[in-house]
């Protein structure tokens, strides 16, 4: 059956995100372009490109790993400090204790994660640009 382009485009100011009815309501669509504000872009086609999928896979892997790491490192702080206070009170440099050093390290951990992310994301930007302009 020939797919019909979506007829109902809301009469709104251009650029406002809205939900539009699918051409074949209730069935998973194939790669026909959806009518949106940028109706000359074939979103589904871009999304299906192996290069795009590969990029997203790598992005997901990095973000999930980084998130697990920073949350674990951060939450270790209240957990250790709350449940092992005597360990954390041990002094390591003059009167400065492990608790303070660990807390201070959180700042540097955050900055380092941010720095690494910015580097990696710059590469992803280049890849994404190549994917959308190559089509």
């Amino acid at each position, binding site marked *: 059956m020939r797919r019909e382009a979506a007829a109902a485009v809301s009469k709104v100011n251009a650029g406002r995100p809205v939900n539009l009815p699918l051409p074949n309501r209730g069935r998973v669509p194939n790669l026909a372009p959806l009518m949106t*504000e940028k109706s000359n872009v074939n979103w589904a086609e871009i999304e299906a490109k192996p290069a795009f999928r590969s990029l997203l896979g790598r992005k997901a892997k990095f973000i999930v790993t980084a998130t697990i790491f920073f949350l674990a490192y951060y939450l270790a702080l209240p957990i250790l400090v709350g449940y092992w206070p005597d360990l954390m009170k041990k002094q390591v440099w003059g009167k400065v204790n492990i608790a303070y050093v660990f807390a201070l390290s959180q700042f540097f951990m955050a900055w380092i994660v941010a720095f690494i992310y910015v580097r990696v994301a710059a590469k992803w930007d280049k890849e994404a640009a190549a994917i959308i302009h190559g089509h």
Partner: protein
Amino acid sequence: MSVPLIMFLAFVALTLLITFWAAKKNTGASAYFAAGRSITGWQNGLAVAGDYMSAASFLGISGMICFSGYDGFMYSVGFLVAYITVLLVVAEPLRNAGKYTMADLLAYRLKPRPVRALASLSTLTVSTFYMIAQMVGAGVIIKRLIGLDFAPAVIGVGLLMLVYVVFGGMLATTWVQIIKALLLMAGAMLLSYLVLKFHNYSFTAFFEAVSKADYAGTAEPKNLLEPGLKYGVAVAGPWGPLDLVSLGLGLVLGTAGLPHILVRFYTVPDAKTARSSVVWAMAIIGLFYIMTTFFGFGAATILKKALITTVDGKPDTNMVAPILAQVLGGELFFAFISAVAFATILAVVAGLTMSASASFAHDFYSNVLHHGKENRPGQEVKVARITAFCVGAVSIGIAIYLGPSVNAAFLVGLAFAVAASANLPVIVLSVFWKRFNTTGAVCGLSVGLVSSIVLILLSPNGMFGKAGALFPLENPGIVSIPLGFLAAWLGTLLTARDLEAEAKFAELRVRAHTGLGSEKATAH
């Protein structure tokens, strides 16, 4: 006319000038709501940092560290690390796929009306709690500074703030935040320097003194570097440590759901700038919070107890930083710090009102009530200005009703917990999970919102006081955040698949991860 008052008025005059400049440039929704998307990376970094370093941060944390030592410093850590969540998960997809508000992203592929309505409600809730905290802080400072009573002080703050928002919009509030952030950093650096100078520029001597902090000899020495003075089992009972973890969780996840911070990412031209602005913000905020070590802990070694106690014997936690400035740097420095602290509050309140009113006008009024159609051009902006007025009036009223004794940090912590429980699960699942549907979003938003608020009302700070509290923790995060995620997840799995939403996922994915089709900067 005292020196603090003069300095304060000078700063207010400066910001009013900015507001009038911005008012001339403000034409159209993009300019009012998103500053024309013309803000650069470092400017937005400063604006975000400014928005973040509110009364609770500067005044509240210094006071908390001064009285409770290390446990107060935990706030400093949490507030900074929270930005990694923003950086990795939220900032770029938001900028790429949305237009003016957080709900734009949520409603991208879901049914707009229920999602926007609930997102608008949660935005208004979070913003109101945050705002009341700032209003209370402002009232207390003005009371000390100028001698006005609490109620007129709060009203005065509210009126000033309304001028910023109603006439200036996002451009004005952004620039006010930038200038304020610079002044706040300068003040914090000078304060830290003076504290170190007091200890002969020696870190060893400084930490030595902190480890037996005795408030210039007026109290028993205690080691403020040791954890547990507020959340330890000895002080807070068996639930103390869990409360600390709950607080930590709320802090680290809450920022990524704070509407008035997220909305700042719409003021930059593209996602890459949004990213760099988060990094700038992290550099500034991180530096600031490390410095709280000095003026927070340091205050306990320099200030006499009597100076930082109120007339009825309670710790005057909000005034520690200004009083430290007075003792170390004289009247002039006290004036400067007080003016900056006050400007901090004013600017944050303006930003909050901005995001709350934008949410109402754009999400609720235009999209829910009027199905996305503007009756007349410019009406959305007009509704936003009216909402700003109403929101300001309501929060002034509630702040006066609650009075000066309500704990500002408690209210801000509540705002963070609500944001993390209601908003974050839905943002994350919408961007990363194809199967996510409208019912899931509605469940996530409502369960997150309701559970966090109910648990706060049942907490030791809530309706039944410490004795009758049904929920033992002060912070609901460790319960309400997982509940929010669970509700969003179950709400999706247990209801019918939304094939429209799934079909639009491809588009959302491409937009969110490449920036194709994102809202561009308007000519300016």
